[in-house]
C-alpha cells in the first residue's frame, strides 16, 4: 500500500519538476506573464511620434552605477563564453566598473518580447529596424543625447538619421553597423554553386526537404525581394510595403516553398549544427554562422554569397531603456561599443559592416573586413533592404492603397507554416 503511494508521489513530483525545468530554461520570455499592459509610458515625454524635440536629454555622463544588463544579438556583446579569446565585455567592465550581464536573442520579435515583458530588466538593447521603431512608439526606449558619445561623430552618415533610429529629429540611439542576410550551402551536396535565392524555392531540386529558413514573419520580405526581380509586373518597390495583391503573390511563393523546408531556425547554434550534420544543405544565414562552421574541425564544407537579386538585411541601433537605473553605464556602453576598435572587433566577429568609419583603418585585417562587407561603399547597400516593421500606411510612401501591417504578416507566417 505505502509502496504505491510513494510511487504516485514520485511520479507527480517528477512531472512537476520536468514541467518547471522545461518551462523556465527554454522559454525565458514567460518570466513576466503579465507585461506590457500597464506600461504605456505615462512618464515618457517622447512616447508619441508627435512629441517635439523638447525632450529632457541628459547633459553629461557621470561615473558608472556599477551594473549594466545588455540585450543583444548573439555575437554583439561577447564576454568570452563563446570563445575565451573573444571578449570585449571584460575591458568595458575594467574601464567603467559597470558589471555587465548579457542576454542574447534570435529574432527581433523575441527581443521586443523580452524587452517589453521585463520592462525594468535590460538597460541597453541592440535593436534592428524591425524592433527599434516599435520600441520608440511604445515608449520603452528613451531619447539619446548623441553628443555625449564622442564616437557618434565618426559613424557613417548613411546610418544616421534614419526613420528607425530618429523620430521627428529626436535620436533614439547610436547606429552600430549593418549587414545582409546571406545564402549558404554545403558545397558537397549543392551543385553547381547557387547564385540566386530561387534555388531555395524550386521543388524540383535534389535538396528539396533540406532547406533551412529563418523562422520569423519578417522572412516574408525575403520572398518579396525575389519577386521584385522575377515578377516585375507586381511592381514591388519595397519588400516591407506590400498591398493585397503583392502580399498574396509573396505568400503563395512561400507556401510553394513549404514542402522543401527541413528546418526553421532562429537559434544560430542549431542552424550551425544542422548544417554541420547535413540535416539541411542550403539556407539563409548570417556570416557569423558560416565563420563558425568553417572554423570547425574538420571545417564544414560551406560557402556563402549575397545573391544577385539583393537581400534583406539589418541596420542596428544601440538603444537605452526608458526605465534604466544605470543611465551612466548605458551611455558609457553606447560610446564604448561603437568605438573604433570595439566596433571593428564586433564587425569582424559577427561578419558585418562596422558603423564607425574609423573602424576600418585600424589594422589591415579590419580594412579587409570593411572591404568584404562594403562598409564605406553605399552603392553596395542599394539592393539590401534593412529590416523594418510593415505598417498599414505603406512604408514606401504610397497613399492610394493600404499595405499589410505586421499583424497580417505574423498571421500569414503562422498560416504558411501550417
Amino acid at each position: 500500500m505505502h509502496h504505491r503511494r510513494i510511487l504516485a508521489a514520485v511520479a507527480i513530483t517528477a512531472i512537476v519538476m520536468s514541467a518547471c525545468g522545461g518551462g523556465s530554461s527554454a522559454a525565458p520570455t514567460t518570466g513576466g506573464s503579465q507585461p506590457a499592459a500597464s506600461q504605456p509610458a505615462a512618464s515618457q515625454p517622447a512616447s508619441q511620434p508627435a512629441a517635439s524635440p523638447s525632450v529632457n536629454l541628459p547633459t553629461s555622463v557621470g561615473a558608472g552605477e556599477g551594473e549594466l544588463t545588455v540585450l543583444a544579438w548573439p555575437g554583439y556583446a561577447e564576454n568570452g563564453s563563446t570563445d575565451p579569446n573573444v571578449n570585449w565585455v571584460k575591458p568595458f567592465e575594467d574601464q567603467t566598473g559597470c558589471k555587465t550581464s548579457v542576454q542574447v536573442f534570435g529574432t527581433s520579435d523575441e527581443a521586443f518580447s523580452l524587452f517589453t515583458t521585463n520592462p525594468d530588466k535590460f538597460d541597453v538593447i541592440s535593436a534592428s529596424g524591425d524592433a527599434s521603431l516599435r520600441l520608440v512608439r511604445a515608449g520603452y526606449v528613451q531619447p539619446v543625447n548623441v553628443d555625449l558619445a564622442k564616437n557618434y561623430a565618426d559613424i557613417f552618415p548613411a546610418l544616421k538619421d534614419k526613420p528607425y533610429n530618429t523620430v521627428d529629429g529626436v535620436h533614439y540611439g547610436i547606429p552600430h553597423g549593418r549587414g545582409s542576410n546571406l545564402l549558404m550551402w554545403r558545397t558537397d551536396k549543392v551543385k553547381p554553386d547557387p547564385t540566386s535565392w530561387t534555388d531555395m524555392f524550386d521543388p524540383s531540386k535534389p535538396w528539396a526537404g533540406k532547406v533551412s529558413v529563418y523562422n520569423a514573419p519578417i522572412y516574408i520580405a525575403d520572398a518579396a525581394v525575389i519577386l521584385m526581380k522575377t515578377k516585375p509586373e507586381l511592381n514591388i518597390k519595397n519588400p516591407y510595403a506590400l498591398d493585397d495583391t503583392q502580399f498574396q503573390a509573396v505568400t503563395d511563393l512561400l507556401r510553394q516553398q513549404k514542402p522543401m523546408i527541413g528546418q526553421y531556425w532562429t537559434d544560430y547554434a542549431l542552424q550551425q549544427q544542422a548544417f554541420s550534420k547535413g540535416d539541411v544543405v542550403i539556407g539563409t544565414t548570417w556570416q557569423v554562422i558560416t565563420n563558425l562552421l568553417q572554423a570547425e574541425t574538420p571545417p564544414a564544407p560551406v560557402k556563402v554569397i549575397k545573391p544577385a537579386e539583393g537581400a534583406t538585411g539589418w541596420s542596428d541601433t544601440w538603444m537605452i531603456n526608458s526605465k534604466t537605473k544605470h543611465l551612466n553605464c548605458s551611455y558609457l556602453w553606447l560610446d564604448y561599443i561603437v568605438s573604433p576598435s570595439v566596433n571593428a572587433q564586433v564587425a569582424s566577429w559577427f561578419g558585418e559592416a562596422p558603423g564607425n568609419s574609423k573602424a576600418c583603418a585600424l589594422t589591415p585585417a579590419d580594412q579587409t573586413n570593411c572591404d568584404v562587407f562594403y562598409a564605406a561603399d553605399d552603392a553596395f547597400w542599394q539592393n539590401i533592404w534593412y529590416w523594418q516593421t510593415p505598417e498599414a500606411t505603406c512604408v514606401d510612401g504610397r497613399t492610394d492603397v493600404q499595405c499589410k501591417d505586421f499583424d497580417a504578416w505574423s498571421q500569414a507566417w503562422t498560416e504558411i507554416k501550417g
Partner: protein
Amino acid sequence: MTSGTRATPPELTPALAGSARRRLAAALHRRPRLRLGLLLAGPAGWLVIAYLGSLAILFLNAGWSRDPFTGLVHRDWTLANFGQLVTNPLYRTVALRTVGMAIAVTVTCALLAFPIAYYMARVASPRVRGLLVVAVLMPLWSSYLIKAYSWRQILSNDGVLNWALSPLGIHGPGLNEVGLWLVLTYLWLPYMILPVFAGLERIPTSLLEASADLGGRGLMTFRRVILPLVFPALVAGSIFTFSLTLGDYIAPSLITTTQFIGNVILANFGVPNLPLAATLSLVPLVIVTIYLLIARRLGAFEAL
C-alpha cells in the same frame, strides 16, 4: 483572530513566551475548524493564487485587444480573438494534429508500458523489481532539455541512429513527425509505467487463482480479470502522457518543422500578440478538462 494579536514579541522572557504559547495552543485546541483553516491556508492560498489566479489572468487576457504596431495590450474588451480561433481553419488543423499526436503517443506508451509493468509487478523478484523501478525512474533525473537535444542528435542525418542502421541498408525516421512520436514516447513512458505497475501490483493473487480454478486460461484471465482491474490505472497513466504531449512545444520545434498548439501559442507570444496567445492557451485547457472528466468516469482517479 484573537490569537493574531498575541504574537509573542521577541524580548519576552522564556517563561512568559511559554505561557503565551500555551494559551495559543489552548485557543487552537478549542477551535478545530480554525486549526484546520490555518493548516490549509498556506497550500490552499498557493493553489488559489498561483494556479487559479494565473488562469483567471489568462482568461482576462483572452478578452483584451492590442495595438497592431507595438503589440501593447489595451484593456478594452473584444471577442475578436475568439472569432479568429473559430473562423481560421489553421487553428482547427493544428489542434486536431496535436490531439492526434497525443493519442498516438499515449497508445504507444500504454502498449510498451504494460508488459514492462506486468513483469515488474508480478514476475520479477523483489530485488529485480527494485532495480527496474530505479531504471524506469532514472531518465526523470536528467533535464527534459538535455533529453530533447540528445534525441535531435540521435535522429539527425549523421546521427547515431542512421549510423547503426546503415549496415542494414535502412534509414532512421529522421527529424520529422515520426521522429517526434518516438521522442515523445520515450520522454513520457515512465509516467505510464508507474501507475500501471501500481495497478497490477494491487490485483490480489487470489483473483487470478480463482479465474484459473474456474477454467480461465491465460488469455481469458487477462481479458476478463486483469484488464478490467488495471484499466483505471492505464487511464491514470494516459492523463500524464496525453496532457504532457498536448502542451509540449520544445521537442516539436527541435525535431520537426510542424506546428503544434504549443508552437502557435509561443509564436503569438513572440509577435507579441498576448491576447491571441491567451485565447489559444484555452484550447489545450478545454481538451484536458474534457479528458479529465472522461478519466474520472473511468475510475482513473481512484487508481492514482
